[in-house]
């Protein structure tokens, strides 16, 4: 067990060095390669929200809606009011979380396929709202030429410098840093008592109620955090692309967020990250098959359910999957 653990630490360390140092240094002039990893990082963030709703036992196919809400919040605020990106980023998360909580109050009572269906419809509904609210969103033509982030200064000290044209490395580290923050936050949540309560809700909400857990409150906390993460992910995505359309986050994107979780493994916090990187990376590498992407995703999903229901991370840690639950946190 000890050996396995140290091996795992080494593997993790290698990945961290690759991600934070080796890759960006080697590809520092290739906007294409950096772009792929930026996309994968942001998609990982957004999927981590979906992973959290899985942990309370809800299948969430609505994360695209909240990424879109976050994206449009940033786009509209920066374009119409000239607000700074650094203000818009958290604000987008808050707006998404607020909308999520409003919708969550009625729909979180639903379970299983019913919750999945409602959230699926929500993505479509939000797309339609942005398509038709032309005054604010310019409808189907979308919002373009969204300004890049300026400098973040407190007093006279510049904490984060302004973006300079052509420097993709800037967004690379921005996305990497955001992913790190989200991961640390969720890891803390996951090992704390709150994470245990989330898992308790998944296993039996009637028992949770009867031992005095305010089930509605904790469900809303989980869903609110999920939507918050979706919102900031959408915001960063929008600014790195410099544009947003009603079709930027479609139902299929919501499906992908869920697929990343399935692919990586629902029992592992790093599951959605592994899933997002693997899929985005492999599809960039296999550009020839890209037009069959949706078909391949569908087959992949079926294959996963049949042969690898606990995700790819369960291959490496198959023995540990149980151990994690067995070992009390402390």
């Amino acid at each position: 067990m000890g050996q396995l653990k140290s091996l795992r630490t080494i593997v993790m360390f290698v990945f961290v060095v690759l991600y934070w140092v080796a890759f960006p240094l080697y590809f520092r002039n290739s906007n294409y390669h950096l772009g792929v990893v930026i996309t994968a990082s942001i998609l990982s963030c957004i999927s981590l929200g979906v992973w959290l709703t899985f942990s309370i036992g809800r299948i969430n196919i609505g994360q695209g809606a909240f990424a879109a809400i976050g994206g449009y919040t940033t786009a509209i605020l920066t374009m119409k009011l000239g607000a700074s990106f650094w203000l818009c980023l958290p604000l987008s998360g808050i707006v998404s979380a607020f909308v999520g909580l409003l919708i969550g109050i009625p729909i979180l009572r639903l379970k299983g396929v019913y919750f999945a269906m409602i959230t699926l419809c929500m993505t479509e509904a939000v797309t339609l709202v942005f398509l038709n609210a032309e005054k604010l969103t310019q409808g189907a033509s979308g919002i373009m030429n969204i300004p890049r982030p300026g400098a973040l200064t407190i007093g006279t000290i510049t904490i984060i410098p302004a973006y300079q044209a052509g420097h993709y490395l800037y967004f690379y580290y921005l996305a990497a840093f955001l992913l790190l923050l989200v991961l640390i936050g969720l890891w803390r949540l996951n090992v704390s008592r709150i994470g245990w309560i989330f898992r308790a809700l998944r296993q039996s909400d009637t028992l949770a109620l009867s031992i005095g857990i305010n089930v509605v409150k904790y469900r809303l906390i989980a869903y609110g955090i999920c939507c918050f993460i979706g919102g900031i992910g959408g915001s960063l995505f929008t600014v790195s692309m410099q544009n947003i359309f009603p079709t930027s986050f479609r139902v299929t994107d919501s499906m992908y967020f869920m697929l990343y979780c399935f692919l990586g493994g629902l029992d592992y916090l790093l599951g959605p990250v592994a899933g997002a990187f693997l899929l985005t990376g492999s599809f960039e590498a296999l550009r020839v098959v890209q037009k069959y992407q949706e078909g391949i995703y569908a087959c992949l999903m079926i294959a996963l359910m049949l042969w690898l229901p606990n995700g790819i991370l369960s291959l490496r840690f198959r023995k540990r999957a149980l151990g994690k639950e067995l070992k009390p946190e402390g």
Partner: protein
Amino acid sequence: MALLEVRDLTKHFGGLAAVDGLDFDVPEGEILALIGPNGAGKSTVFNLITSYLKPTRGTITFLGKNMTHLGMHEVARKGIVRTFQETNLFREMTSLQNVILAHHLRCRASDWGHFFYSRRARKDEAEFRESAGAILDYLGLSPYRDELVRNLPHGHQRALEVALGMATHPKLLLLDEPFTGMNPEETDTAIEMVKGIRNRGVTIILVEHDMRAVMGISDRIVVINFGKKIAEGKPKEIQHNEAVIEAYLGKEEDGET
């Protein structure tokens, strides 16, 4: 004043009155058994007392306060906790984790405190761990503390449900068929445990079909049939009550109790 006062409790499911004008009191420190033929409405009474269902009519007063408008977790916070007829546990966690979670009402740290692992949160966790260990000890479950609940035999799972109930420090514990599926020796041990819990100052209401257990354990018995109370009294009185005998034996095919 009784700990729990139930007055005119009525619950209609469509046209069916599952519970119909039920009145009874539970004084502090008593073990009260609620019995009756299958479908008499016993579990519905439990669901009403714990606010899992809302009554059509009537009141439930606990420590002088009306409980009927509260949510289920709020009722638990006031001190009424139940176990379920169908085994209901967090199956993918260990026994110890189950009992630690059940200490939820005794958390002093806030959610933020737990998130940042504040000093108070650490103290909470250490305290719960110790208390959970003691409860498992008391119920003879210590050897299985790190075992996943889904791997436990049925009898231990039932005992663990009682452990979860105890962990919440209830004033009133509702046990729904706690002795089901136990052999006579296991039942006798379980009876002693339930009595022990009462001696720690917990009032108990239980629904049970095992008449030997009911007669051995309860101070008082309330018998219901078709949602109405048909008898109430000490075990001796109930055994010889005409209405009760008729309810149980008077009709054909009622013998499964």
